[in-house]
């Protein structure tokens, strides 16, 4: 008997609108992050999928180290590395169908590349030539988003629009632990649940928002718990276990595609590198902590599983490394070429048709460029 029933004589039954939409219990995440690798569940995993995840992880790691090296050489203004978080990135890309959409944040270049975006084009934002180097419609990857969590409502709106049009499309949006504190995170989850939009939110909890640890970011038992208040399921997964992240995301994507609405997935992972090259991570975390996480490296975990089960040998590992090395060499070569930029393009895509004000400014710039090309004498000075 509930408290309300006991007091029935004194208090009216609340009208239906006051009742919780559902029993919250099914929405609650597991107490511990879900794991596949090293458990009995691994036996059910598709060996082909595991091998593919492995190849992508090795490629992803190499991409991260190469991009970091390019930063040190001054070829990139900045690179927010996802070293240690590759399992989340790769699973997010591989779980989607071609018609689905990915909404990455600035740290998610790897997810974009794993989805098919050209490795060089994925870096233009960070190189500084153009904000988005790829056509978002080509691989259905939204522009890398720098403001925190503001891409989440976009994912909700796109998924909602697709459903209104009768299209079988799911949107997957990536956000970090820090981003869950932003207002747009709340509004996106609320809209998604109210509209039952086919969208999946993947929080990559890498422990720190630049330097602020999770304990100072939230008082919730887990970030996945935040789902319950919106009326959507929360799932907690080991973010370094590529098979587990893939499985949980695949379930969430299928649930969304079948009309079941949104899911919030929290992947517990760790950023092994600093926030960016501008950050000194030794100021806010101990080496011992980083070393402990190295033992839980996503590549090591999957490699161990595959070799233990005889699904991967030395040749297979070498092939994966060589493939990654070829990608890195190509990236290096192409990134070492200076991009050809036309300054007049500054005015090309501000509006569909440039305003008279922009046309005047373009003429001014053209005159400056002409004078520059003519040199000091040609400029008549």
């Amino acid at each position, binding site marked *: 008997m509930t408290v309300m029933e006991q007091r029935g004589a004194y208090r009216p039954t609340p009208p239906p609108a006051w009742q919780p939409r559902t029993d919250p219990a099914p929405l609650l995440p597991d107490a511990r992050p879900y794991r596949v690798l090293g458990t009995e569940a691994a036996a059910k995993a598709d060996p082909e999928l595991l091998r593919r995840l492995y190849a992508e992880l090795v490629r992803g790691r190499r991409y991260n180290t190469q991009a970091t090296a390019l930063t040190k050489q001054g070829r990139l203004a900045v690179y927010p590395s996802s070293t240690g978080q590759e399992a989340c990135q790769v699973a997010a890309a591989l779980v989607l169908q071609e018609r689905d959409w990915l909404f990455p944040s600035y740290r998610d270049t790897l997810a974009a590349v794993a989805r098919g975006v050209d490795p060089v084009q994925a870096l233009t934002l960070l190189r500084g030539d*153009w*904000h*988005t180097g790829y*056509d*978002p*419609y080509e691989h259905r990857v*939204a*522009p890398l988003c720098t*403001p925190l969590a*503001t891409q*989440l*409502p*976009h*994912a*909700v*709106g*796109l*998924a*909602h*629009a*697709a459903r*209104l*049009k009768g299209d079988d499309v799911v*949107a997957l949006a990536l956000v970090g632990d820090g981003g869950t504190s932003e*207002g*747009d995170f709340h*509004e*996106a989850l*609320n*809209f998604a649940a*109210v509209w039952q939009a086919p969208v999946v939110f993947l929080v990559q909890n890498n422990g720190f928002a630049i330097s602020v640890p999770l304990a100072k970011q939230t008082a919730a038992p887990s970030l996945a718990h935040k789902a319950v208040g919106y009326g959507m399921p929360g799932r907690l997964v080991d973010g370094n276990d590529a098979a587990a992240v893939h499985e949980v995301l695949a379930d969430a994507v299928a649930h969304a595609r079948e009309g079941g609405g949104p899911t919030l997935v929290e992947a517990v992972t760790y950023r092994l590198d600093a926030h960016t090259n501008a950050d000194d991570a030794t100021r806010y975390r101990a080496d011992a902590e980083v070393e402990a996480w190295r033992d839980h490296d996503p590549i090591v975990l999957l490699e161990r599983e595959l070799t233990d089960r005889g699904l991967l040998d030395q040749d297979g590992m070498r092939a994966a490394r060589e493939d990654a090395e070829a990608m890195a060499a190509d990236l290096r070569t192409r990134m070492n070429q200076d991009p050809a930029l036309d300054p007049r*393009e500054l005015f*090309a*895509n*501000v*509006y*569909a048709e440039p*305003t*008279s*004000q922009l046309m005047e400014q373009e003429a001014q710039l053209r005159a400056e460029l002409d004078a520059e090309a003519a040199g000091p004498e040609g400029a008549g000075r």
Partner: protein
Amino acid sequence: MTTVALKPATMAQALTRALRDAMAADASVHVMGEDVGTLGGVFRVTDGLAKEFGDDRCTDTPLAEAGILGTAVGMAMYGLRPVVEMQFDAFAYPAFEQLVSHVARMRNRTRGAMPLPITVRVPYGGGIGGVEHHSDSSEAYYMATPGLHVVTPATVADAYGLLRAAIASDDPVVFLEPKRLYWSKDTWNPEEPEAVEPIGRAVVRRPGRSATLITYGPSLPVCLEAAEAARAEGWDLEVVDLRSLVPFDDATVTASVRRTGRAVVVHESNGFGGPGGEIAARVTERCFHYLEAPVLRVAGFDIPYPPPMLERHHLPGVDRILDAVGRLQWEAGS
């Protein structure tokens, strides 16, 4: 579907008609916002749309402006044309990050691949006795953001024509609706709506020879009244209605001021950092040798929007405009 019989004449009705016609003409047009559905909007501008087009095309959203505009971005990415309502000027501020960080620059940051045809309807301005946060004139914020069009009608016909143009535009448009003109009437006949008015053209509402009043939105009727009153003092004032703040119609404004040699910019938004400063600078740059006096501004005071019982002292009225016109008899050294 039954046709909703609209009475002609008010600006609010012209806006409703524009939304309805746009939705009927293009299935990708979606109206969304807090209270726009069953209630028909707090100003009844969306009245009847949910009934006629269904909840999916005229959607009551959760109360969250960033969410309303943020989801509209995603909808526009997928080929829809969202028309979002911000209900009141100051309520739009939570959506400001979505507006300036995404809506305004998505075309640019994707090098033209991803235009966002979103119309953001913002009822704005004072004069209706609204309480705090219900009377702001926020146009300067929007004007300062490249990538946005900023449009504001002052007549019933323009309300229809410009809103149709805004919805049809492939660029985002901040559509500022002067609240105190919602119930202003005109001879506009909704059975034969005016042609869609291209965005970016100012219009001379009243020709004159001795000075130009440059204005827009809620201040237009005040300027027309002032122009009539000024006749008694020998002034023949020209009144230019900008209609579009971005793009700015330099040609019409410049031609007018070169003819008259004097100009006053009138708006109810505060003066410091307000639209008038930009307009006065543009006019001065283009008309310096034609000017008989400095370009003057008549604007709201540089104060947070005052409580309603004092707002008449804040809003530029006929007397304040006439005072400024008097100061146009400027002599060097005075």
